[in-house]
């Protein structure tokens, strides 16, 4: 069913004569259901010509052509030859009188620059889908994002002014909002084609994004007059190459007066020589998150790679030992490792381990069964005795919040091997067992002062338990508030942590070994292994 009615004829004829494609004509006539747009281009063009012919009105293809006559096949051919000679298009007539094109290249629409001509049809979509399939991503749905050159907004505006004027003559009441947006129509047509070709639904919430960017170098300067008239809309932004962004152009078009616009830009827009070019077809998958808990058994392993002046100071790191395997299996581009606090190079993490989460950026593979994750965990654990992981699982981005909450709010327990300068006996350390919820003030330790603000932090040592070793050594178990610097609590950090073990015992104390015994965060959920 052809979607245009009698009252659309004047506008449709005007637009077709000035070089606008059928689908754009539908848009400016307010055709807001999908079906008409999905018909093949040639069919639409034929139907449109038939529709416009029924009143036996003249059909003018090209304004500069000889006076209008009733179109018959031969005349049509002459007209088309004329157009071809002017380089206006690559039209040709086939036997049944319908217009066909070489390589589907008819005249280039002066409004959409080919977007709603060849770029929404099956052949192009197939080309995009081939690229998507070649990219090696695993996906069960996709979101399609498309970017058009900003000068389309200017042409759309010009076409609107033209249509508005024409409708004014007929007192038609189509408002700006009744005009169907270019991108909307484009998606109506292309989404089903994508779904069919790739076999998956389009879902706006999908993590897998296929993005196509169009450009039209020939008309790049179409926007520039706006820069002169509304200079305050166009501020040079740091990351953008051109100051004529879609947003800025929109803003300027909303501001500019009709008369000023008409002075600067042809209404109707002129016909371009070529269609848009495809600047890029890219695929990307949103990040996925893997969480777990890690134990650290080495006293010479940093959390993150330790590199100074391009030279690696210590081999490997906690994050690499865990993430490298994940990077491979998920076929991701890169990772971001974060954990609920961290320990020094020379500190072990025992007990249930420390919660961590890894963001895998642009993963090509995302679907794993829990069995596969278990095997991945075993693989990591077999590959190193410096670290071990448990409770490895896929989590959502929101879940990461639980872990960071743990860093600031949850308690930790430690065990430390302490040296004293004076000789001690069992009874000399017993008093420490009785101290509960000891408040200490810690100035930012000197060893981190170069990268942290200078401040005093009050922290609580909830309880302590001592185990005598010999005249100069004892083990201290302690449970503390999150964010407590344990080493500084033992040796006092030049007296900048008060009180400290040394001051409590009235002697000089130092810490020889430190282990994290537990990180009291109940996330991620424990899995039965």
């Amino acid at each position, binding site marked *: 069913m052809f979607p245009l009615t009698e009252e659309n004829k004047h506008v449709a004829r005007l637009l077709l004569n000035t070089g606008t494609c059928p689908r754009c004509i539908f848009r400016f006539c307010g055709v807001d259901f999908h079906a008409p747009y999905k018909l093949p281009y040639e069919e639409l063009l034929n139907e449109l010509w038939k529709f416009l012919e029924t009143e036996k009105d003249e059909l003018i293809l090209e304004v500069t052509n000889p006076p209008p006559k009733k179109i018959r096949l031969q005349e049509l051919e002459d007209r088309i030859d004329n157009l071809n000679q002017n380089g206006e298009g690559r039209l040709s007539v086939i036997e049944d009188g319908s217009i066909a094109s070489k390589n589907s290249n008819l005249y280039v629409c002066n409004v959409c620059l080919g977007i709603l001509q060849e770029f929404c049809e099956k052949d192009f979509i197939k080309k995009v889908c081939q690229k998507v399939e070649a990219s090696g991503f695993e996906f069960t749905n996709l979101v399609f994002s498309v970017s058009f050159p900003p000068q389309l907004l200017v042409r759309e505006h010009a076409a609107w002014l033209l249509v508005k004027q024409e409708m004014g003559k007929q007192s038609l009441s189509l408002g700006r909002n009744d005009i169907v947006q270019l991108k909307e129509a484009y998606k109506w047509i292309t989404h089903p084609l994508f779904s069919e070709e790739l076999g998956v639904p389009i879902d706006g919430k999908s993590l897998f994004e296929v993005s196509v960017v169009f450009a039209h170098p020939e008309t790049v300067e179409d926007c520039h007059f706006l820069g002169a008239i509304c200079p305050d809309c166009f501020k040079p932004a740091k990351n953008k190459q051109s100051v004529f962004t879609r947003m800025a152009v929109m803003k300027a078009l909303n501001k500019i007066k009709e008369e000023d616009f008409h002075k600067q830009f042809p209404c109707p827009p002129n016909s371009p020589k070529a269609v848009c070019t495809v600047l890029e077809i890219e695929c990307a998958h949103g990040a996925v998150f893997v969480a777990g808990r890690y134990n650290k058994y080495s006293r010479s392993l940093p959390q993150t790679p330790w590199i100074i002046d391009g030279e690696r100071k210590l081999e490997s790191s906690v994050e690499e030992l865990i993430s490298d395997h994940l990077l491979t299996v998920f076929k991701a581009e890169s990772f971001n490792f974060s954990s609920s606090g961290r320990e020094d190079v020379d500190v072990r993490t025992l007990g249930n381990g420390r919660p961590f989460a890894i963001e895998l950026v642009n993963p090509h593979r995302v679907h794993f069964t829990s069995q596969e994750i278990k095997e991945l965990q075993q693989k990591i654990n077999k590959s190193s005795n410096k670290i071990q992981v448990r409770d490895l699982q896929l989590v959502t981005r929101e879940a990461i919040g639980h872990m960071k909450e743990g860093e600031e709010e949850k308690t930790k327990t430690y065990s430390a091997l302490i*040296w004293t*300068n004076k000789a001690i006996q069992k009874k000399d350390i017993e008093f420490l067992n009785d101290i509960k919820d000891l408040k200490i003030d810690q*100035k930012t330790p*000197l*060893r*981190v*002062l*170069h*990268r*942290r*603000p*200078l401040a005093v932090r009050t922290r609580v040592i909830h309880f302590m338990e001592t185990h005598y070793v010999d005249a*100069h050594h004892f083990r201290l178990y302690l449970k503390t508030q999150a964010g407590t610097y344990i080493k500084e609590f033992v*040796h*006092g950090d*030049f*007296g900048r942590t008060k009180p400290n073990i040394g001051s409590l015992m009235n002697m*000089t104390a*130092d810490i*020889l070994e430190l282990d994290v015994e537990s990180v009291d965060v109940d996330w991620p959920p424990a899995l039965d292994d």
Partner: protein
Amino acid sequence: WIPSPKPLSRGVPSLVDRYFTRWYKADVKGKPCEDHCILQHSNRICVITLAGSHPVLQSGKTIKSISYQISTNCSRLQNKVSGKFKRGAQFLTELAPLCKIYCSDGEEYTISSCVRGRLMEVNENILHKPSILQEKPSTEGYIAVVLPKFEESKSITEGLLTQKQYEEIVVKRINATTATS
């Protein structure tokens, strides 16, 4: 004061020896034996302390009081730093005074920064209990903490003496005194 090897009774080096390198400046501002020891952390932070040979640390000296008011308009106690980049800190040159130490025998000693950089903090513990300065000059009795500019972190030690060079100077002094006595 005669330099002696550091005790390793614990089998591991001390806190200072683990994290810091000791640098020295002798006869600061031309005053004989007023030696300073700068503890430079591996992260480039410097702790200004008195060297063992400084008169204040010799037996028999009693400290009456310590003051951080180094001029009418400047008190090191008013130093305030904020943020990761330590804005607002008083900037120190090598000869900038940090504090004045008044002894019961009437002697007055000025302690200088010896390194260029931002003043992080001065030690308020020695204000309340000056004896800490003499009991633990290398740790609890420190004078001040200074953060040199990142670009200057290596060059600040160019004008300073290594532990070895300092010990040689001290030995020379002792020999000179014994020779003349």
